[in-house]
């Protein structure tokens, strides 16, 4: 078994002091692969994504999250990020008063030693390359983080950040929802550009149309807090045609 993977083992999690949402999740994303995670509304996909990123509103009651051989359960969200994890949020929050450029500079510098901050020119080159990759206007980087952004612009910003931060593992939570057809292509191009032997991704989506652009190596299906099915990319097409009812019936969920 390779260490070069993100592994979720028997993970159970609940809202702090509340109801259990993840009821024993098992899932492996090897580095170099892109996997899809599908499942009906409310099945726990976003919860899994946020739990992996370390969202303090959830507590883990059993199981483990292992990043390249190392458990990250005890790590704070910022440490996990610096270990190479990235979550593109389903609902990116607005943070007033900080521009995208300044924010990303802080995020990059957080990954570097004090005294070894990224040079201004190097930073802007990197940022502009990413902006260009997304067919975006340069002025976007001076805007405050998501303040007044449309739904689609927020999603694009999540991918822009991914391109700049170059994580080893990314979880994209419904990055396709709210995007128009052109933006969907652009965003998919962005993700495909990041694809390679040093990048693994878990792409959460409801729609085959995204997976036409970002073709997954494997597909996982979550129902009611568990992975109930796993298969090749054709599984996604089957779900697209038949919906989730047959799976619910098949697994008795």
């Amino acid at each position, binding site marked *: 078994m390779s260490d070069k993977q993100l592994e979720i083992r028997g993970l159970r999690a609940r809202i702090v002091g509340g109801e259990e949402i993840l009821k024993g999740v098992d899932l492996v994303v090897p580095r170099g692969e892109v996997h899809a995670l599908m499942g009906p509304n409310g099945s726990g996909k976003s919860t899994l994504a946020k739990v992996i990123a370390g969202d303090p509103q959830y507590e883990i009651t059993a199981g483990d999250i292992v990043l390249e051989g190392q458990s990250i359960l005890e790590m704070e969200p910022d440490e996990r990020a610096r270990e190479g994890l990235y979550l593109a949020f389903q609902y990116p929050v607005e943070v007033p*008063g*900080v521009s995208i450029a300044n924010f990303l500079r802080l995020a990059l510098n957080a*990954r570097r030693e004090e005294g070894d901050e990224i040079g201004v020119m190097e930073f802007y080159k990197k940022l502009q390359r990413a902006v260009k990759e997304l067919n975006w206007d340069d002025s976007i980087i001076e805007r405050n983080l998501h303040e007044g952004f449309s739904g689609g612009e927020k999603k694009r910003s999540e991918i822009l950040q991914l391109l700049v931060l170059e994580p080893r593992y990314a979880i994209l939570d419904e990055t396709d929802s709210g995007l128009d057809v052109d933006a969907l292509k652009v965003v998919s191009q962005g993700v495909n550009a990041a694809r390679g032997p040093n990048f693994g991704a878990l792409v959460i989506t409801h729609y085959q149309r995204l997976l036409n652009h970002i073709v997954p190596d494997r597909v996982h299906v979550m129902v009611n807090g568990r992975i109930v099915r796993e298969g090749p990319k054709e599984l996604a097409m089957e779900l697209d045609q038949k919906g989730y009812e047959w799976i619910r019936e098949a697994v008795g969920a």
Partner: protein
Amino acid sequence: MAALTDNPAVSADAVESIVSAYREPAWLADERRAALRAYSDQPFPTEKTEEWRYTQLKRFSFSGLELAKAPKDESVPERIRMRIADSDAEGVIVHKGNKVVMHQATIKEAGVVFTDLRTALRDHEALVRAHLYDVVNARQTKYTALNSALWENGTFVYVPRDVEVELPLGAFTTADSGGIGLGRTLIVVEVNARLTFIDEYTSEPFAERLFFDAATEIVLKDGAKLRYVSLQNWSRNVAHINKLRAHLGRDARLESVTVSLGADAARAEVESRLEGPGSESEMLGLYFADEGQHFNQFTLQHHATPRGFSDVLFKGAVRDASQAVYSGMIIVDPHAQKTDAYQTNRNLLLDEVAEVVSIPQLEIAANDVKCSHGSTTGPVPEDQRFYLMSRGLRPEVAEHVLVTGFLYEVMSRVTLPKVAEYVERVVQAKLGVPGVKEKL
């Protein structure tokens, strides 16, 4: 026991010694004597009265203190030199104790007076006499009465009709010894004239306690426009109290920003009286209290005329065992129809031991008005914190971003870039952002 008790240093002798030392004109001597009477007639404020409820009055006590006199050292402190070099103000005056230790300004616009109050009394007595005590005077509070009776020097700015002073002017007030310090700024902007003025209070820490009582009088004639900044960053051995009041004529406009960062305790009373139709008053406030500081702010928007506009936005963060108090009042007189008045106070609680009291109030006697007030107090939004940390930002950096972001709504309306930068730097230093020192 009353929190405040009488102080023998505040006496008729003290008044007479100022009057004779400076050979003041009779009208001023009479004003001072009347002010001292008003002072004696007023009871000390107590926390039982509405205006002073929630004010930690003991921290504004001046009992046992002597009147502050000459500074120990009359040189301009390095701190002030650096602040001047990094200020938007192009003409400055520096007060230290009762001395003017620096005054440099080349003002190209004709007829503008920018000097200390002593010099103004000598060279422009009629102008001073016409406006002094019109806006801040002994009838208001125990503290304004104290100031009105015993101030020794201050700053005077006069901008004649139709003159626009292009470059900002400023006064720095500092100290190197304790006692009762009294500061006074009198700004008169004539019909259709314009000015930007910055009052900054700052010092290196010194051993004794300084109680500083400031009076800021602003007269805006018809069509006058003033941008005014009050930036308080005293060392922690100082208690600061300031009444900052403006009277606005027809179509006059005030944009003020009151910043509280330093001192052990600070009270800012920021007041506008809209006297001419169409006048506009925007009063912004920003504060960050830490390590047990007590910041107390009161705003008053008094609409005494129809068709006035006023907007108050005070925002601040508190942490450690600090306390921020905001109380605001909008008064709309019966005939002040078509008034637009807004008042907002927002507070960020950075931990569980910090405390905020926020009391917005309205007293509306007219029926055709638009008024609203709102107040919120809460911790840093957890979803924002998680988002920033999920990008790798360390908790202290994330907190800094969130505090800066919270204050941004005010900062973005401060149109003086160096003031904005400096305030941000002081806030960062208070937050302990790695690599950021206050850099004065």
